[in-house]
C-alpha cells in the first residue's frame, strides 16, 4: 500500500512541557485514522506538525513521499495544495463570502482552471455538503454546523489526497455531529481521500475511522479497530468508551 504519511521518532515540547515524546505513525492510502485523547494532550499539535504549521524538536515526517522538515517554504506550500485541513472552528475568512472562501484555496491554480470550471467546482462542493443555498452568505450568517460544512467544502475544492479533521464535531449538537460524521465518510468514499480525524467524540470515531490510536503521555498508548479498542480493559483506554 502507498504510504501517505510516515512519521518516526517525533518529539515536541513547549518549554518544560513535553507534549509529544516519541510518535511513530504510518497512514496508508485509503485509511481513515482517528486519533483519540483528552483535551490538551497534543492531538492538534501532532497534526499541525504534519502539515508544517509547528516545527517538531526531533523526528522525521514524510507526507506524500516528501520530508516536511527539509522542504523550502514554496515547495511546502506546493505540497499543501494536495492536503486539506478542517480546523476546529472552521477558520472561515470573516471578510469573505462563502463563495470567496471556497475560491481562495484555488488562487494558485487559477491559471490552470477556467472560470467556468471553478464555478462548477464551487457548486459541486457546496452540493456535496448540502449547502448550495449558502453561496452568497457571509460566515457570520452561518450556524456552527454550517460553518463546519463550508470549511469542509473549502477543503474539498482542492481535491486533496489527505484530509485532517481537527475535532470535527466539537461544539455541535448530536444530530449535527452525526451528519458531519456521515459527511466525512461519504467524502472519503467519493473523493478517495485518506484522513486523520482528531477527536474525543467516540461516536464520530466509530462512524468515520477504520482504526484508532489513543494519544496519552506523549505516545500512542493503544491502537486498534473500534471494536478492539472498545473491548480493551486498560483503564486509560476503557474510560474513553464507557
Amino acid at each position: 500500500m502507498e504510504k501517505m504519511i510516515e512519521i518516526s521518532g517525533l518529539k515536541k515540547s513547549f518549554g518544560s512541557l513535553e507534549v509529544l515524546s516519541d510518535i511513530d505513525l504510518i497512514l496508508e492510502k485509503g485509511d481513515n485514522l482517528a486519533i483519540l485523547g483528552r483535551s490538551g494532550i497534543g492531538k492538534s499539535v501532532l497534526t499541525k506538525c504534519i502539515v508544517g504549521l509547528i516545527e517538531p524538536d526531533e523526528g522525521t515526517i514524510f507526507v506524500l513521499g516528501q520530508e516536511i522538515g527539509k522542504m523550502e517554504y514554496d515547495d511546502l506550500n506546493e505540497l499543501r495544495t494536495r492536503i486539506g485541513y478542517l480546523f476546529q472552528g472552521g477558520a472561515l475568512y470573516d471578510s469573505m463570502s462563502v463563495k470567496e472562501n471556497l475560491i481562495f484555496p484555488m488562487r494558485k491554480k487559477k491559471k490552470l482552471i477556467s472560470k467556468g470550471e471553478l464555478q462548477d467546482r464551487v457548486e459541486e462542493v457546496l452540493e456535496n455538503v448540502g449547502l448550495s443555498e449558502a453561496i452568497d452568505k457571509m460566515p457570520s450568517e452561518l450556524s456552527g454546523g454550517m460553518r463546519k460544512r463550508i470549511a469542509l467544502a473549502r477543503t474539498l475544492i482542492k481535491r486533496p489526497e489527505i484530509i485532517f479533521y481537527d475535532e470535527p464535531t466539537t461544539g455541535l449538537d448530536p444530530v449535527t455531529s452525526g451528519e458531519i460524521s456521515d459527511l466525512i465518510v461519504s467524502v472519503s468514499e467519493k473523493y478517495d481521500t485518506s484522513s486523520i480525524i482528531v477527536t474525543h467524540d467516540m461516536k464520530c470515531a466509530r462512524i468515520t475511522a477504520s482504526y484508532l490510536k489513543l494519544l496519552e503521555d506523549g505516545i500512542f498508548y493503544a491502537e486498534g479497530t473500534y471494536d478492539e479498542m472498545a473491548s480493551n480493559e486498560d483503564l486509560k483506554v476503557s474510560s474513553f468508551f464507557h
Partner: protein
Amino acid sequence: MPLIGLTALIMGIVLTMQTRPVLVDFGAQAVLPGMISLSIIREIGPVITALLAAGKISSGFGAEIASMRITEQIDAMEVSGTNPIKYIVVSRVLATTFMLPVLVIFADFIGIYGSYIAINFTGNISLQLFTDQAINVLSFDDIIPAVIKTFVFGFFIGIIGCYKGYYANKGTESVGTAANTAVVVASISIFIIDLFAVQIMEMM
C-alpha cells in the same frame, strides 16, 4: 478622511488663534500665513496625521490580524498553500506606506485653510493674499523631506500593526493587547523617526 480633515481644520484654527496675539504684539502679523504653512507642512501636519493613523489604522490592523490568528484563519491560509505574510502583511504595509503621504497632503491643505478661516474671525485677509503669503515662504527643501518622512511613518504604522497582530498569542485577550500595543509602539516610533528625520534634515 473626515477624521483627519476635521482634526486638521481644528489644528489650523487653534494654531492661528494662539500664535496671532503674539505676532500682533510685535507688529508681525503679516508673517502669520507663512509661519502657519511652514509649521503645518514641515512638522505638525505629518506628525498629527501619523498619530491619528497610528490610533486608527495600526490598532485596526493589530486587532484584525490577531483575531485572524486566534480563529486559525492564518493557519488555514498557510495550509491552503498561500503565504499569509504576502497576502495579509505586504498589502497592508504597502497601503499605509503609499497612502499616508496622500492623507498628510490632504491634512496640510485643510490645516492651512483652517488658518485662513481663523484669521478672518478677527481680521480680514483675502484668499488670494493669504495663499500667496502661505506659499511664498515654502521651498522644496521644506516640502520634500516632510513628504519622505511620511512614507517612513506610513511604513512603520503598517508594519507595527501587522506584527503585533500576526504574533498575537492565543486567546481573545490577545486581540485587545495587540491593538493596544500597536498604537503605543507606533506612536512612540513616530516621535523617534521624527527626531531622526529632523537631525538628518539639519545635516543636509
